[in-house]
């Protein structure tokens, strides 16, 4: 637009936004993705894949409800199998969204502004997928409300001393707080969509969701306080969630589980896999929707660095785990460590080492961090590696525990795989709906990145 302000300042040296953007062009570019009638082929393909896998999920759940959890490979002593592996994997992926939206906000990392929205959406959908597994694993999922304390005629209540009950509280709190945080962040952008939508139905729906937001200075002042407080609340929460998930293991005395470094190791692993998912989503999205000016190479580089740092922590944890197995002098801990390396799960173990110890070290090279296609491949490697890690911890420890006579090797059945792939479908389905219906980048926060959003910045030139 001709009457738009011109960028007169040099863009921030960090290059977290391409030069030449204006308040108007940012708004138009991000909101057009939602408001246009045209749907790109990429979207159709992604949504279609999600839908197909979602149908597979519904089929797998249908069969599960009819026949019971025996269709999965879970047999004594490996009663957790795929279900809990997938649960921990999905919950971990969600953690990057909260890290970006809360922790990086408190640390005043402004580059987060252009990736926080879809990362938070990723968190929500990942938690939804994670929640499926403990529910289905109950065997009688329709009685899930027995997990919560409520007055009932049976006169029984959950055992509050059990980490599994802690998990119910931690994960449901996490899902609720993530949803609230996400919605609060969306409100100003929903108002933008309301004001720009041509279609009356869309205007009504966005208008109702925006709740009458009008960008008043009084509201912004409270809003900023609310964002900071929510970030402050979400930060300890996100660290606690995977800690509590790791309590599911550490509080038990199964060899290979009973160790004090699980909480930090789980949290680091969660952020590691979460950033991999952020990259796996951001790299194709920014190409297809032409958003390279908003999600720049700098964003990818920073995310890759976080992945490298957390990957090194995870690698350290593996080494420490093996060291503890040897140094503890405990015959069972020692046996579990040796079994992991040489036993029936040796292939998985060494693939895991390749994915989570060797692969992240390639991210030291700027060439890999700077090449989106390679980074995409690397993030998939990390996602596979982290899944194997969860699998290794859960399955190998249970399959070969203290009593040799009860050992049994676990194998996932096709329904295990169908359910797992099905939740990937659920995730893709929800995520593609999200990018079609809601702004995938926070419009108002990206506006604040512009040099002329600063009061006093371009006033002289503009007045002259």
């Amino acid at each position, binding site marked *: 637009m001709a009457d738009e302000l011109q960028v007169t300042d040099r863009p921030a040296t960090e290059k977290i936004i391409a030069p030449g953007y204006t*308040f108007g062009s940012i708004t138009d570019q991000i909101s057009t993705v939602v408001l246009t009638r045209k749907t790109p082929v990429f979207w159709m393909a992604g949504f279609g894949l999600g839908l197909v896998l979602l149908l597979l999920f519904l089929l797998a759940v249908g069969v599960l409800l009819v026949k019971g959890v025996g269709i999965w490979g879970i047999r004594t002593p490996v009663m957790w199998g795929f279900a809990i592996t997938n649960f921990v994997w999905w919950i971990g992926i969600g953690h990057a969204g909260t890290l970006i939206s809360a922790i990086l906000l408190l640390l005043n990392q402004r580059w987060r502004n252009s990736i926080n929205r879809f990362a938070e959406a990723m968190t929500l959908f990942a938690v939804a997928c994670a929640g499926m597994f403990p529910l289905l694993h109950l065997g009688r999922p329709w009685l899930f409300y027995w997990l919560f304390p409520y007055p009932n005629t049976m006169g029984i209540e959950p055992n509050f001393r059990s980490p599994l009950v802690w998990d119910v509280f931690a994960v449901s709190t996490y899902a609720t707080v993530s949803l609230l945080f996400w919605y609060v962040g969306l409100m100003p952008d929903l108002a933008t969509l309301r004001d720009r939508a041509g279609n009356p139905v869309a205007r009504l729906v966005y208008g109702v969701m925006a709740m009458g937001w*009008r960008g*008043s200075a009084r509201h*912004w002042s*409270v809003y*900023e306080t*609310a964002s900071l407080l929510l970030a402050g609340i979400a930060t300890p929460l996100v660290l606690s969630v995977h800690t509590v998930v790791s309590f599911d293991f550490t509080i038990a005395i199964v060899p290979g589980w009973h160790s004090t470094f699980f909480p930090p190791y789980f949290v680091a692993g969660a952020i590691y896999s979460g950033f991999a998912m952020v990259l796996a989503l951001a790299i194709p999205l920014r190409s297809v929707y032409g958003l390279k000016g908003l999600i720049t190479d700098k964003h990818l580089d920073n995310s890759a660095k976080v992945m490298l740092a957390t990957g090194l922590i995870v690698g350290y944890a593996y080494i420490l785990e093996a060291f503890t197995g040897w140094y503890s002098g405990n015959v069972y801990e020692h046996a579990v460590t040796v079994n992991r390396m040489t036993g029936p799960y040796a292939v998985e173990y060494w693939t895991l080492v390749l994915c989570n110890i060797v692969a992240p070290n390639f991210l030291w090279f700027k060439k890999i961090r700077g090449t989106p296609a390679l980074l995409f491949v690397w993030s998939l490697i990390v996602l596979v590696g982290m899944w194997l890690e969860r699998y290794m911890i859960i399955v190998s420890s249970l399959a070969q525990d203290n009593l040799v006579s009860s050992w049994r090797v676990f194998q996932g059945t096709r329904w295990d795989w169908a359910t797992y792939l099905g939740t990937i479908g659920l995730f893709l389905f929800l995520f593609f709906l999200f990018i079609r219906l809601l702004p995938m980048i926070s419009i108002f926060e990206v506006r*604040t990145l512009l040099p002329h959003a600063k009061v006093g910045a371009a006033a002289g030139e503009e007045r002259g």
Partner: protein
Amino acid sequence: MSHRVHGVIAEFDNPTALVEAARAARQKGYRKLDAYSPFPIEELSDALHLHHNRLPLIVLVGGIIGGISGYLLQYFVTVLYYPINIGGRPLDSWPAYITITFETTILFAALAAVLGLLGLCGLPMPYHPVFNVPRFALASRNRFFLCIEATDPLFDVEKTAGFLKTLEPQEVSEVAD
């Protein structure tokens, strides 16, 4: 049509002009002011003296209520309602209750933050007079507005509009109530 006005609104095309206009209006003695912008502007809150709000207190109270009720819930269930003696261990085994107490603290604090935000902003609000100004739709895009409301003792449609025009806005318009 009865000539009721909500106020007079001036449109600016950059945040600096809006903040300067808000300062000038305060200096002129206007107190019933509101400004509208597509993103939060810290200097604007300064100019309009908006720095204190009760949200932190609301969140604190929410968190304390959450923590206490989370602990009491567990205490009630394990000590009073459904006590089980396991090897003579104490019924009120507080270290085991800390996790859930922590989670309910967080949950109630977050709910208090969001409900408090909506409450303090008076949202949801289905109707507000500023939306009667056609160009106000740009307040969520790239325009900045300053509104002097009719409830201000110094308010006079002509004079206030005249004053706003001296601030070099893009446009000044009346806001129908």
